[in-house]
């Protein structure tokens, strides 16, 4: 018997009113399980930033989350434009978000750096014109 739970979410594009639904659902589930609270906070940050990125840049995408007693693995995949320069995108303060998004309080250039800091491992697979897939892992105990 497997003790891994998995969940899938659709992140709608261009809908800031629904961004955060997947992350709050995952957070809720982890709380119900009684997961380590620091791990829950880190997962919430990483998932939320990932959702927001997909809404801002990629017209939405999909999230797949696997929860086991040892770790939480998140895969966020989109069919967006891809990231031209990953090193630059990882730099704090660098952002390509449009003005309307900045007016909402986003576009500080903190999304990917926040995700990297909150997780124990993060991999970015991206191709121009094809999309971006992020794999992130948070261990129950850091």
């Amino acid at each position, binding site marked *: 018997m497997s003790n891994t739970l998995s969940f899938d979410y659709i992140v709608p594009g261009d809908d800031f009113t629904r961004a955060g639904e997947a992350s709050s659902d995952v957070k809720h589930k982890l709380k119900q399980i009684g997961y380590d609270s620091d791990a829950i906070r880190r997962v919430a940050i990483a998932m939320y930033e990932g959702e927001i990125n997909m809404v801002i840049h990629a017209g939405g995408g999909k999230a797949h989350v696997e929860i086991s007693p040892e770790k939480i693995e998140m895969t966020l995949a989109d069919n967006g434009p891809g990231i031209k320069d990953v090193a630059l995108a990882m730099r704090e303060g660098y952002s390509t978000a449009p003005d309307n998004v900045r007016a909402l*309080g986003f576009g500080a250039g903190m999304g990917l750096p926040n995700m990297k*800091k909150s997780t124990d491992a993060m991999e970015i697979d991206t191709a121009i014109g094809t999309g971006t897939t992020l794999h992130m892992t948070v261990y129950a105990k850091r």
Partner: protein
Amino acid sequence: MMTVKELAERLELKILAGEASLDRPVSGGYTGDLLSWVMARLPADAAWLTVMGNINAIAVASLKDAACIVLTDSAPLDDAALEKAQELSFPVLLSEQDSFTLGARMDGLLR
């Protein structure tokens, strides 16, 4: 420890949403308007002073287990945000004072 209700009374804050959750404890405060910045740093059980009254601010505050949002400078809470805050029963308060002035007063109260 001070509750959201006591904080609202002492700082003359108007309660816009989350009336059922005013017994939440407040252990500190945080100020900021850039959501990703706040997402990374907002402590749990903090009163978050901001001018961002949109639905994403509610999401950030709730995901980070903040005690409440305090909109400063009479910043508006938009309809979608109000609806979300009510749905989550998340306290949103309002002040006419700016974040600096209110934050300084709050610091005096919480110490």
